[in-house]
């Protein structure tokens, strides 16, 4: 167990070089499942005794992936395909792909034919969550995943193991949400870059291990005096805010991130699996039905704007930065409505385009500078 600086560095290292984490687990004789974003049912992987590891692309210009995806496909999918084809994911026992957008639907097939040495397990979430039948349907999808994983492990998931996995993930959610609150008292240490690596790094650890590290970080932060932050507080929304150089631009302009609605960060931690309501598989399905405020999950009324307004009020943020993943149509449909809702609520907004492998930081920097002056 290390000090605050060491713990933060461990999490940062995992984000910078996830391959090392993969090798670390493989060296322990563990099997690892690649989890495409977002909302892969990691609890099932955990319960199967394997390590779920997030596949969130990276700074990788598509070369090989050009044979599978057109230039206007999501940059994360382009990078995942590229990294897969170049062998960066060697060692994974399988990948799970949730078909939450049109590009992800196609990725199941591109992976299936392009990456024959790493099997693909699809998960098709129900979108008409008002229909009670969506629960039985989703349980069936989860059971299919469980069976496919049993072909890798040779064992079926037990009710006990899934129940324990759910408890571990619920605890992790609580710890991550606690971290997000605690971080706001220490914005001198938890800069946008540091916050991002703590939130994202969970994808590269066995969850109980990650929980333990983040708990220590929280404890160490709480032992420090509260920092009086005098800069500008913002909330981030979107799929992801990367690369680090972009977050550095926020820091350089006096911004602190005091909350987020990023699929790569808080969206995954804000919905617990209910502790009651049936067997573990059914409860996991009920968690899906409780997810909210996300562009990839159908809801009536476009509630994201009001949700972001509440988050700004709770955190004292004066602005929201929309980190719009390039070519992400679900996010693009949400943008006009949540921006209008925020504007009506007196919250300033800025949209920046996120492209992990060709970020035009200079142009974004100028816009962030103007935004800083505005708020």
């Amino acid at each position, binding site marked *: 167990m290390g000090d605050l600086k060491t713990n933060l560095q461990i999490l940062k290292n995992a984000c910078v070089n996830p391959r090392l984490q993969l090798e670390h687990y493989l060296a322990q004789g563990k099997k690892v499942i690649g989890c495409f974003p977002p909302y892969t049912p990691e609890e099932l992987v955990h319960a199967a005794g394997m390590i779920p590891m997030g596949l969130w692309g990276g700074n990788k210009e598509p070369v090989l992936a050009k044979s599978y995806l*057109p230039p206007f496909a999501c940059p994360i999918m382009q990078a995942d395909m590229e990294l897969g084809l170049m062998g960066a994911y060697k060692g994974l026992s399988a990948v799970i792909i949730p078909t*939450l957008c049109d590009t992800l639907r*196609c990725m199941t097939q591109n992976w299936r034919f392009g990456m024959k040495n790493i099997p693909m397990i699809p998960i098709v979430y129900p*979108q008409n969550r008002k229909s009670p039948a969506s629960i039985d349907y989703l349980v*069936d999808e989860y059971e299919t995943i469980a069976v496919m994983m049993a072909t890798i492990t040779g064992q079926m998931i037990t009710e006990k193991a899934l129940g324990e996995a759910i408890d571990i993930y619920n605890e992790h959610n609580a710890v991550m949400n606690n971290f997000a609150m605690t971080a706001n008292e220490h914005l001198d240490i938890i800069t946008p870059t540091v916050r991002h690596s703590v939130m994202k790094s969970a994808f590269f650890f066995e969850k109980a291990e990650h929980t333990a590290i983040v708990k220590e970080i929280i404890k160490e932060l709480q032992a420090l005096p509260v920092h009086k932050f005098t800069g500008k507080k913002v909330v981030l929304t979107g799929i992801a805010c990367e690369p680090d150089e972009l977050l550095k631009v926020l820091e350089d302009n006096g911004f602190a991130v005091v909350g987020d609605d990023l699929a790569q960060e808080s969206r995954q931690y804000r919905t617990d699996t209910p502790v009651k309501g049936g067997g573990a598989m059914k409860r996991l399905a009920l968690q899906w039905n409780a997810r909210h405020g996300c562009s990839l999950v159908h809801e009536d009324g476009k509630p994201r704007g009001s949700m972001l307004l509440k988050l700004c009020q709770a955190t004292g943020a004066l602005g929201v930065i929309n980190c719009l993943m390039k070519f992400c149509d679900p996010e693009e449909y*949400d943008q006009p409505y949540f921006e209008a809702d925020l504007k009506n609520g007196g919250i300033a907004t800025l949209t920046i385009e996120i492209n992990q492998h060709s970020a035009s930081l200079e142009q974004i920097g100028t816009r962030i500078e103007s935004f800083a002056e505005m708020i």
Partner: protein
Amino acid sequence: MDEVKTATVDTPAAPPAKPKRPKAKSMIMIGEQTKALFDSAIAAKEKGELVGWSGSIFPQEIAETLGIVVLYPENHSAGIAARHQADPFLQECEGPLGYSNDLCAYAKVNLAYATVLAGKSSVELPDGGKMVKPDFLLLTNNICNQLTKWYENLARQLHIPIFFIDTCYNPWDHVTESRVRYVRAQIDQLIADLSKFTGKKWDDERFKEVMKISQRNSYLWERANNLMDRKPAPLSGFELFNYMSCMVCNRGKESTTAILEQLNSEIEKHIADGTSTYPTKENYRVSWDGIACWPYLRHNLHTLKEYGINMVASSYGKAWAIEYEDLDGMARAYCFASTNGDNATTMISRRLEALKKFGCEGTIYHVNRSCKVMDCQMMEVQRQLSKLAGVPFTSFDGDQADYRNYSEAQFETRIQGLVEVMEQNKGGK
């Protein structure tokens, strides 16, 4: 086989202009049916009845059974694009409304049109507003996920409810029973909810009649498509796009039966007389993959005609040939209707069957900038299909409704290249 992208053959001289042939009776009937649908929507509004907008592969039979008038935004946007009227709507959507230009152009045209209907935009409606303001939305996502987002936005903009059937993507080669049960439960719920909302009563006997009509129409539609297997084909393949509105918007209506019976008899007459509506000698037979490039349909057709290329099979039109016998069957059929909702294996097998059946010598892929679900696995499908069928393919960049995403020169060059390989193949046979 590799994709054909270059060419060295010379363009043959265009044949002398022929006098315009009279419109087929079935085409006149289609025009009348389309007008009748829009008129019925206006009449329903005047009577104080509720009118809906619907996704293109929503089980139309439900609204038909309840006697509700429903209009189709995708079909309407395609019409606006084909008539070169999309520009002010695209500008409005990407400008004042704040939408990204990355989005589906059918959606962009429709969202801007809806804003005019809501009294919040002054874009002139070229059709006088015949696509009347909806009171509810009927949504299925078997065509794509974007439709779900598009309808979420319409619902919020117009303060109207969505009635949704989530059909679920099929990553497997079949529709799982769990999907059928989920979709069936949604159909039952939707019938109850829609009946309550509109004040209309569900009648099982009427549904059986509508289902029978719909099945007859699916049969006739498929038959008309299948008659394109004759060599030379009795129709210019692009003409079948014109009949799609009767399957998309009027699948459960007897007026569609009349149109398709007429179409079938016209095709049979061509076969008997040894004639064709294809205006020149059919030198090559190809399949067309993807939605029509509506803003440039004329240019597509003209370019293909120069080489005597007839499009005898399309991956797209047959999505509306939906066959079933009861509500469970309906649930399964609508899950499996569109190849957009199916895995690559299903997609490839359907296309391979068509290439063989229709004696296609090549495939033209429309890389439709509006449609990620069609484009993002197309390259793998192209490779596998070309290898299995042994026919060359080419692709071109275009859009179903955004005129800015197309280059006439590129289309011409790609077709030239395809012709070169098809010609070589003919020589080798």
